[in-house]
């Protein structure tokens, strides 16, 4: 019988990244790449410009997952992106200084046509310089 899944990493923080202030150029570039048409995201003046809600997924922390994840879970390197949920908070505006903190939110196993799979949910909380919640992103990864 396979050993019970080690869930000791749940709750552990593996990344904390402070990003440089958001620029109007970056918001407009992201909006154009995402095929946005709303002028709020593209042509508004800098003071009125608002990033599209999914802008937050363009932010990259230093570590995508804990360095010891595969060792602790005793799994291989094969896997895929199993989707993400984004809970949006206050809008991102020009000049905002964003901070992202990532933790292991959940680890669970399931079985399917192709066998057993381990799912890891990586939760990233993004806040602005006022401590307001900008977004909570739950990134699911399937690994085996």
């Amino acid at each position, binding site marked *: *019988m396979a050993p019970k899944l080690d869930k000791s990493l749940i709750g552990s923080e593996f990344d904390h990244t402070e990003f440089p202030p958001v620029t109007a150029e970056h918001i407009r570039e992201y909006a154009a790449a995402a095929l946005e048409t709303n002028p709020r995201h593209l042509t508004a003046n800098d003071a009125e410009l608002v990033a599209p809600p999914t802008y937050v997924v363009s932010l990259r922390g230093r570590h995508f997952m804990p360095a010891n994840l595969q060792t602790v879970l005793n799994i291989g390197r094969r896997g895929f992106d199993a989707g993400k949920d984004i809970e949006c908070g206050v809008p991102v505006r020009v000049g905002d200084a964003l901070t992202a903190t990532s933790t292991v939110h959940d680890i*669970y*196993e*399931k*079985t*399917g*046509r*192709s*066998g057993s799979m381990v799912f890891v949910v990586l939760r990233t909380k993004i806040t602005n310089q006022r401590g307001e919640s900008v977004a909570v992103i739950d990134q*699911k990864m399937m690994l085996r």
Partner: protein
Amino acid sequence: MILDLHTHSEASEDSRAPVETYLKWLQRKRAEVPIDGLVLTEHRQWDPHADYRALEDKYEFLILRGAEVETDYGHVLVYGVNKDITRHFDFTNVRLSAQELIPAVTDMGGIALPCHPGRPTVGLCAHYDGKPPIEGVIAVEALNGGSRRGENERVQELIDRYGYKTFGGSDSHLVSFIGICATEFDRDIRSIDDLVTELREGVYRPVDFRANLAKRAAS
């Protein structure tokens, strides 16, 4: 009485379907999908506090609850979940013993039935190829709305050989899949106890509404 015995709502990690949206959809599709209610069978979990009575009253559909658990013989639907069952079995364990689970659930007042038996790895047929049959199986989900080509057909040999009763479920994870396959009972069902009794002793059969939906879509 027609019930969809295998459904997942947003409480399951791989579904995005709110229960109320299922009910709104069923109201709109009564002609094509004439079911009277559904059983929520969320993956690997049982929430003793979930309460859908307000939605039942609002939309006039019966809403019952069960669970889909994972065993060494594939996935199994458990109806009539109670404290005894959840105390004995950890629903998050994906390696539950089916030989232990199925008779024990019956002893504890519920019923546990293998679902999508024709599916590779997580269906009964694949396991019966190399392991002894499970004691106490009463019925199998012969019609599963999420099955791929050939998977439902594979179940007939199992039914012929072991004499299992058959039922159907949509295995819906998306709103528009609710009720596409279901189970027709000869007697009325008003509660989970009624459902357990009927699944054990009653007369029922799988029903498939996919042709109705396809015909409507084509017209």
